[in-house]
């Protein structure tokens, strides 16, 4: 059974919606800049912030604000989720709509800003919604009227790739007729400080697959896709087929990936096998490409292992939008769909010098090309590796 993407929504540092995202990707315009939204001693570290403030997001979403509390992660999630649902129309009234959301920060942005209040007697009942991963999912479900199979995946940086994978399988297993799947994460002081303790934040802005790469850049945002089976999808809405997907555990290290990219190569091969495609069918790779020493070497080696001397054009969008953590996989899905729809290869922003360890370098130019199949990678803490393949229909 084919499962289609029939709608999508996205908000990141380079804009809101598919059109803004596309024009930024075409020009290679980066949304990375200084931290403006909260106070931190790490002001010198660049990030990819979404331009709108929480108040502006509430306004755009027409949410009641008196006596109500929202996490930024939830607001970003609702922005992108609503766009996705609005862009998809089903032929027949769809009975069972499911929501598979993904986040790693949940309501952490609110939690860290209001820690004292939350620990005091002044805590408001609705603030309890903001303390875990489920709260933002509930806001999306409630606003969009979804009640069935509402859930949240949290597998670090591969979270929303797994949300899409789970959504596709829910349709294939007959558990849902339509699934809204994706993820959302705001930049928080918690994640900024956390990644800073690991000494993997770039002081300059990330440079995926560059020899002088110096770490990742945190981004924030949300991206969602609407998944539907062939029988109910409106032909005009069909953006692509989710043809391949796989999830493997690298079981190598708690925070880093193996230098030889064993887990990444395994997951890419499994996704190809699910899609019944061979490596030379892949027209481009949307890489995880975080810009850390470890990831890019590991992912690069995995790509070499699988594709050998026929490596397809590869690029990472993280030089433009930063690493959006739980939203990275679904943002990758949206970028892949844009690549298929426009028949375009997007440039890998931030690249200058080829890595001496690798036989290839990322694509640095905006190019027209025949794009039938896109591979999108997402790798997370704990060796949580997920690959998705999107194909033209």
């Amino acid at each position, binding site marked *: 059974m084919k499962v289609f993407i029939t709608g999508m929504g996205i908000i990141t540092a380079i804009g809101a919606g598919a059109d803004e995202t596309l024009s930024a990707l075409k020009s290679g315009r980066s949304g990375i800049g200084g931290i403006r939204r909260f106070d*931190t*001693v*790490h002001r010198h570290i660049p990030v990819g912030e979404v331009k709108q403030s929480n108040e502006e997001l509430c306004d755009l979403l027409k949410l009641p604000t008196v006596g109500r509390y929202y996490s930024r992660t939830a607001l970003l999630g609702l922005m992108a989720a609503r766009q996705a649902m609005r862009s998809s129309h089903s032929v027949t009234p769809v009975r069972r709509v499911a929501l598979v959301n993904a986040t*790693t920060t*949940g309501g*952490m942005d609110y*939690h*860290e800003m209001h*820690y004292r209040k*939350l*620990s005091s*007697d002044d*805590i408001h*009942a609705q603030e*309890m919604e903001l*303390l*875990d*991963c*489920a709260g933002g*999912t*509930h806001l999306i479900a*409630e606003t969009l009227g*979804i*009640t*069935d*199979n*509402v*859930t*949240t*995946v*949290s*597998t*670090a940086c591969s979270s929303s790739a*797994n949300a899409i994978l*789970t959504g596709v*399988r*829910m349709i*294939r*297993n007959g*558990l849902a007729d339509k699934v809204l799947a994706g993820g959302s994460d705001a930049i928080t*002081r*918690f994640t900024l*400080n*956390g990644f*800073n*303790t*690991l000494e993997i934040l770039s002081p300059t802005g990330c440079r995926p697959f560059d020899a002088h790469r110096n770490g990742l850049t945190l981004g924030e945002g949300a991206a969602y896709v609407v998944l539907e089976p062939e029988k109910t999808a409106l032909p005009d809405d069909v953006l692509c087929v989710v043809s391949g997907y796989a*999830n*493997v*555990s*690298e*079981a*190598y*290290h*708690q925070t880093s990936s193996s230098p030889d990219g064993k887990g990444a190569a*395994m997951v890419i091969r499994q996704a190809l096998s699910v899609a019944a495609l061979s490596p030379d069918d892949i027209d481009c790779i949307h890489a995880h490409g975080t810009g850390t020493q470890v990831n890019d070497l590991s992912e690069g080696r995995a790509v070499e292992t699988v594709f050998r001397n026929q490596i397809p054009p590869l690029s990472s969008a993280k030089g433009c939008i930063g690493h959006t953590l739980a939203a990275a996989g679904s943002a990758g899905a949206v970028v892949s769909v844009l690549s298929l729809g426009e028949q375009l290869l997007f440039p890998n922003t931030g690249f200058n010098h080829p890595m001496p360890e690798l036989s290839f370098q990322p694509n640095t130019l905006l190019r027209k090309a025949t794009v039938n199949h896109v591979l999108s990678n997402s790798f997370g*803490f*704990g*060796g*949580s590796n997920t690959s998705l393949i999107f194909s033209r229909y």
Partner: protein
Amino acid sequence: MHAYITSIGLISPQETAGNRFSFDLTYENAPLLRCIEPDYKQLIPPLQLRRMSRILKMGLGAAQICLKNTENLQPDAILVGTGLACINELETFMLSMLENGEQGLSSIPFINSSHNTVAAQISRMLHNHGYNSTYCHRGASFESALTDALMLLNEKNAEHVLLGGIDEYSKQYHLMLQKLGHAAVGGEGAAFFLLSRVPAGKVFARVTAVRTCYKPAADFIDTFLSAHHLHNDDIDTVLCGVNGNMQDDRIYDHPAERIFRRDTQWASYKHLCGEYTTSGSFALALAACSLLDGRFPASCILRNPRRPQRILIYNHYHRLNYSLTVVETVR
């Protein structure tokens, strides 16, 4: 879709961590139920043990107990449901960040606060490269992971899935709940299951259906039953999540009066494990053991004691996350 429960590893507030589970009431009128933890040195390599957070020890310990009973079978997939995940590590890192002005922080609590820590570390301990995922959806976390497990078995992508439900007591979170009137005895636990596609070895029971809903419509139990071709009298026992909070417990009145027959057995379980976001995993372990034993422990039976054949586990968390699970005897 279905799954055979072929092994269980349980760390709970009852004497359940050994080879024989005892669901005899160990505590009565306790304000809070904490787990009786096993000697982890017997289960986890000591070198790794020293650096582990408590939730990680509970998770790895329960997973090991579960797999030891199967002669250390290598599962094809590892799934964990955890409502609040590593909330104590998250709290530690956040507090230290706020109190020390973001300076001189240790990376350890940050690394250990990742929600998928337990599932990922189990895969490392077992050198397992299979499918690995973690669901964090408050009161529906375990049932979401169970749904994924049933899909994997149905897809024939797995013969055996290691599935766990785990949550650790957090003082901070519990205090917030109390302030907001969610009065219930707090609890915690780690329950792991080996779910198999075909019956093999010791079979406790068979899971045949699961559903989670967010603020569902009033008729969702009827919809669920009919979707699985079940009639109300096919369910002989309802194992429900009453927790002593009047507002929460009122939810179970409607199905008791309107949906199920008057002679249906009703049982409860939260007096044994307390209220927590993945208590449904404890309920599944209790239901599976009770199907094997042919009866529920006396303290669990609310009315109409009988030999259970097909149990509906019906739970909700704070009237937001609802779940329904059908588990039946294989004899």
